[in-house]
């Protein structure tokens, strides 16, 4: 009897050889991609990896390993690399790699640039996966047709757009990243390395290919990419083409910025309402839902929680004597400030006390800075009181009501907004692009400045004042802390050179030049060790 028992056991054992136990609280890809709703929820992750750091609000189930989850937010990483490396921002934090950014001392193991690299490649991988799952043949085989199939078709094109956007990020910051698309099954190929120029061509062709596949400007849902986003990215890329490829594309930049400018967007009346908790409702008078945002990263204090993006931009700059209630937050993190170089680009405000929040009644309303208790001169990067406070991003509504949650943030952040396109148009005209004209360029700049001066023409400039240097300064005023400064300074040849310095550029209080190889970030040494196809950027 015992022998029979043992025999039975051996038979059960052989069954275990193929038994697949599955988790009760997860789904397979076949299950997820079996319904239109499943596609939408998968797409929510493709878009969501802009604003979410993981699968739990706040932190707890991060997408990216090897970095603090809050720090691993896309825009926070992008902002750190684009702003902390420049005259626009300094920070007190001692988090890994953060101080190396402003000191221009980062190495190939820098946690921040590595984090951005992995975050961008992560979103690209999600896009590749989504595109693979969304072929018309697969949709048909899954019984998805009609309006659902059309919508998923848009999703697939949007995934291609998001992939192109992240490849632009990698092209701009890392130059020569690994390159992989939906044409290979995930996990079967070790990605080969591409070059900056080849990537430029790829992104350009991708964007042009999906242009007809996407809804017209302002015709897609809020938070989803449309043709406006495609044109805006093309315009931005063409403006910087000289840096990326060695060949200028100013005419193309004019072409695409004009398309955006002509698409119906307009400047909202009040600059200081741009980065607020209800900024998703900003619109132009009579424009319905249309405003100046072309594509946004959507945050929500309750439903889209994280320690990056606008949460970071509304908490990190608040400290010292800054009034937390005016920021709609429970407390600031005493981190980021700006330098005297930026302050010098604005008129001197009539007051610098705490009374006229957020911009001290500065005629240029964009000068949203905090003076009390702060020193204009930076002696120490890690002393919060050195450098001026920034009041541009606030988790309060335009009516002054605090956001939904005291810790997390409701402010949506624009990836593209209209004034950038005005500035691209003007700069491209000045740099010799054709298809545009100086008069229109001046009028666009003065549109920006009239809005900045609260509707007054006092800030308008003349044709003679419109120079490329003016454009650079105007970009710093208009697009301050929105993630443009490093790219702009590189385009102007000022990022590494000694011609233009700022406090602690190159780790020296007075500022100094650094080697030109720092115009690119290094390929993270961790990925170099994992991917034998990769070679390090020159200099690192």
């Amino acid at each position, binding site marked *: 009897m015992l022998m029979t*028992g*043992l025999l039975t*056991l*051996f038979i059960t*054992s052989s069954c275990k*050889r193929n*038994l697949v136990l*599955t*988790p009760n*609280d*997860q*789904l397979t*890809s076949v299950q*997820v991609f079996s319904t239109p709703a*499943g596609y*939408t*929820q*998968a797409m929510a992750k493709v878009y969501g990896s802009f604003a*979410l750091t*993981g*699968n739990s*609000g706040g932190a707890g189930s991060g997408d990216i*390993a*090897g970095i603090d989850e809050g720090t691993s937010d896309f825009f926070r990483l992008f902002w750190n690399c684009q702003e902390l490396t420049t005259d626009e921002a300094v920070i007190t934090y001692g988090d*890994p790699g*953060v*101080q*190396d950014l402003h000191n221009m001392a980062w*190495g*190939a*193991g820098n946690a921040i640039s590595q984090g951005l690299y*992995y975050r961008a490649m*992560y979103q*690209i991988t999600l896009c590749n996966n989504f595109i693979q799952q969304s072929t018309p043949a697969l949709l048909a085989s899954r019984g998805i047709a009609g309006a659902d199939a059309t919508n998923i078709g848009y999703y697939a094109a949007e995934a291609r757009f998001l992939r192109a956007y992240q490849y632009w990020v990698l092209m701009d910051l890392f130059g020569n990243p690994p390159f*992989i698309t939906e044409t290979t099954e*995930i996990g079967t*190929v*070790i990605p080969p390395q591409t070059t900056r120029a080849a990537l430029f061509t790829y992104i350009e062709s991708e964007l042009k290919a999906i242009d007809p596949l996407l809804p017209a400007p302002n015709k897609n*849902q*809020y*938070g989803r990419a449309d043709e406006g986003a495609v044109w805006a990215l093309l315009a931005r890329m063409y403006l910087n083409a000289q840096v990326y490829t060695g060949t200028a594309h100013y005419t193309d930049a004019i072409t695409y910025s004009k398309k955006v400018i002509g698409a119906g967007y307009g400047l909202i009346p009040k600059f200081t309402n741009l980065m607020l908790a209800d900024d998703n409702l900003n619109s132009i008078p009579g424009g319905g839902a249309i405003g100046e945002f072309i594509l946004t990263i*959507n945050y*929500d204090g*309750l439903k*889209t929680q994280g320690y990056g993006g606008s949460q970071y931009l509304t908490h990190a700059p608040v400290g*010292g004597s800054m009034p937390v*209630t005016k920021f709609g937050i*429970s407390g*600031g*993190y005493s981190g980021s400030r700006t330098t005297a170089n930026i302050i010098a680009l604005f008129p001197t405000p009539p007051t610098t006390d705490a009374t006229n929040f957020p911009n001290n009644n500065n005629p240029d309303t964009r000068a949203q800075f905090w003076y009390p208790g702060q020193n204009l001169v930076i002696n120490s990067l*890690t002393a919060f*009181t050195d450098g001026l406070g920034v009041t541009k991003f606030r988790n309060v509504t335009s009516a002054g009501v605090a956001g939904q*949650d*005291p*810790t997390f943030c409701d402010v949506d952040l624009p990836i593209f907004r209209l004034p950038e396109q005005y500035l691209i148009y003007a700069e491209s005209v000045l740099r010799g692009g054709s298809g545009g004209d100086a008069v229109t360029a001046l009028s666009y700049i003065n549109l920006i400045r009239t809005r900045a001066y609260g509707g007054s023409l006092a800030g308008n400039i003349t044709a003679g004042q419109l120079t490329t240097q003016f454009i650079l300064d105007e970009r710093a005023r208009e697009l301050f802390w929105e993630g443009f400064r490093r790219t702009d300074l590189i385009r102007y040849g000022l990022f590494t050179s000694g011609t233009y310095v700022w406090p602690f550029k190159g780790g020296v209080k007075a500022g100094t030049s650094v080697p030109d190889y720092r115009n690119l970030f290094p390929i993270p*040494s961790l*990925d*170099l060790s*994992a*991917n034998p196809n990769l070679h390090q950027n020159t200099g690192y």
Partner: protein
Amino acid sequence: MKQYLLICAFLMLSGISFAQTSSITGKVVDETNQPLPGAIVTVKGTQKNAPTDANGNYRLTGVSNGTVTLQVNFIGYQLLEKTVNVTGSAVANFTMVPQNTDLNEVVVIGYGTALKKDLTGSISTVTAKDFNTGVSTTPEQLIQGKVAGVSITTNGGAPGAGSTIRIRGGASINGLSSPLIVIDGVPLSNDGIAGAANPLDLINPNDIETFSILKDASAAAIYGNRGSNGVIIITTKKGQSGKARIDFSTQVSASALPKEAPILTAAQFRAYVTANDNSATKQYIALLGNANTDWQKQIYQTAVSTDNNLSVSGTAGKLPYRVSVGYTDQDGILKTSSLERYSSNINLSPSLFTDHLKINFNFIGSQVKQRFADGGAIGGANSFDPTQPVYSGNSNFGGFYEYLDPTATDGLKALAPINPLGRLMENNNRSTVYRAITSLALDYKFHFFPDLHAIVNVSYDGSNGQGYDIIPAYAASQFPGSADANKVNQTGNNSKYKTVVGNTTLEGDLSYSHEFKSIKSKVTALVGYSEQDFSSTTNNYVSYFANGELKPLSVPNYPTSIAQHDLSSVYGRVTFGYDDKYLLSGSMRSDVSTRFAPGIRTGNFPAASAAWVISREDFLKGNTTLSNLKLRVGYGVTGNEGGIGNYDFLSDYSLSNASAQYQLGNTFYQAYRPGAFYFGRTWEQSATTNAAVDFGFLNDRITGSLDFYTQTTSKLLATIPQPAGSNFGNTITGNVGNMTEKGIELNINAKLIDRKDLSWNVGLNATLARNKITNLSLIPNPNFPGLKVGGISGGIGQTIQIDQIGYPKNTFYTQQAVYGANGKPLDGVFVDKNKDGIINDSDLNLGQSPDAQEYFGINSDVTYKKWNFGFVARASLGNYLYNNLASSTGIQRNFINPQGIVFNGSNAVLTSGLTGNGQNDVLSDYYVQNASFFRMDNMHIGYNIGKVFKNRATLRVSANVQNVFTITNYTGVDPEQFGGVDNNQYPRPRTYSFGLNLSL
């Protein structure tokens, strides 16, 4: 033989000298009634003696009439005495009892038992009589410091806190490194139990009879893909033969904080802030209060605990039984932490069919009720301003003094520490955990073939852990709060948790054992099958605010999460012994684990070992100086499947929770995230070679063993980077890499004094261990940057250690500090290793290892008449520790905080003077300190009162001190921290206890 002749000659001489008096004759036999030739019978107090002949007979002549005492002496047997009345002639027979040398001990091995003298593998045993005394709430503390190669580091001093157990260092980097624990034949799962600080808490240490530790692969390979980290087999006490014996023990103890963390006193703090506030408005000085609060005194207490155990053991009719109940009530030294355990153990071991069927039924049941203190109070007490009072005098925030900010919505200063005592008192986190381990083993000896046994073992290990965490709305820790469903901001917490675990084991094996006396050979064989199913169901509950409003974001996606895993295995073992001199053993196990993809889920784990008992060779036989000498060699392959997920070979999509949705249009969607996958993952594999010598000197008064081992782990479970773009995660725990471990272990036990009224036993063990990572990438890469590990506080996401090829795991990875002429580190100055003019991550240096290079245990026990005194001490050499309290708080920037707050912190600031302003400061090797230590773990004294209650009972009283003292140069609170980062661990208390043992 020589000795024999000599004795005969001596006897003849003595026979001549005393010719005319009485004689005594008799026979000396051994425990099996076989005659013992060559035993010496002596008349006590005289030179008169006689040996036994080949038939065990002796004859003593010339003995004076009257009462004499005879002594019989034979190597390997206990000295026997008998009083004889001699009148002319007398007869005195003796039955000798073997000496309790551990060679005759029965040792529990994997799936069976063996005599210690027959062992070929590296197995250490510790039995109840050698257990550490004093307060042990958790079983492994009984053997801390007792076994070479086994390091047991308690995870702090919280009641019931477990220990980190490493046998030979542990084989893995990111896989499991803890040994497999088998209780009464039930291999336990490594999954935790909700609400239990440590699953072993649920086992009452008083019910344990022996620990058997299988250290090398030749012993552990029978446990296959769970054997790589060694195996600890725990056997509980069984019923004894004879009438009921009742044992009652009770113990009461008091625990106290042995040493406060070295932070500034209120006076030092005041002076420091006053001297260093360089702000224009002297804002920091303005913050100082008038109180003098020692926050550590506020949060710690002297904790009183009791432990009571009652057991009844005996044989009722033909049923041997043992029933025990235990009750432990332990308070922690950190206020609000406590543990209460009710436990019972029932063992029935009847034999039927004239001993052909042996049944062993075992039940371990327990309930543990625990309250967990908010550990954040420990760091809070170190950083809260000591010039502020404990209570504010008003009722806000529960009456506790807090840092306020009138401009903040909630009135609290952001990022300021909160009152540590308030944090403790306002947090009510309690759990109740039940666990039952039931096993039934049937051992049938075939009637027609008694050498063959069939054994069936069925067991169930079930637990139910649940608890709640309630914090009132006014508690400072709960601000700023969050919105309820009506968008009204709420605070406080009321949440609960529950996990139910049910693991079943079904095993059957056939075992054969026969001694072929004609050819002096012993053969055993075993073949078995084991099936284990593991299941753990976690309930996902919603949480509420203190006022009962639902926390909208806590609504779970799934009401439960179920983790399941099956393991089915076939195993076998053959041993062969010739003349008790040459021993061979071979074993094999084949495991099928559902944690791996079909097709690659079967693993085979072979082992072989041999031993040569040199002392049984003719040239050493009878040598009392070198009484035992045995050489052992073994080789085996073991696996490790622990520490990884159950389903990772599948690419599964998990739904984001309610607070991680994304807005498309006007709708928020919960997102499906594809998980990183690793189809090809398999078990980690270790090959171990062990060579050892067991020895006994001076008639085995000194015994010991010396082991040398090398373990090579391949298919290392290491968390390695994935090529970006090739997976849904940038790292994956895959089978990449190799690691080697080498070590030497020495165990010595000596009976320094062995007299009737005075005995002194000393045990010493020493371990030398080294580990080295030899590869960490798929394609060997000399530029591998290493994997950063060892998170520290003082910079979010900052790490201080690295796993790097060519170095021990968790090697410190630091910036090299530069020192000034005064011997102090220069502020923010580090060595520019690559000389590129900047200090960044390229200048980090691989430094020391947190693991001890050598560690030692020593224990001593002296018995004098009814007294006994003993101690257990450990030493650890070459273990380094990163002093995170000093690095994150012992800097000016902490005290004069840029956030406009004053924090207290480590008094290291007074010696170093560092500001902490630079990003690299926290990575300075200045904070990595040699934490070698000598710790007196335990000193105890006992007195055996003897018969009480009209001779019906015996009583023993004892007193004990644990964690008596520690000698170290380390400047932090405690040099013993597993992992190498010292940051606000729950301190180990010093415990004084008094106990009574009563036996009826």
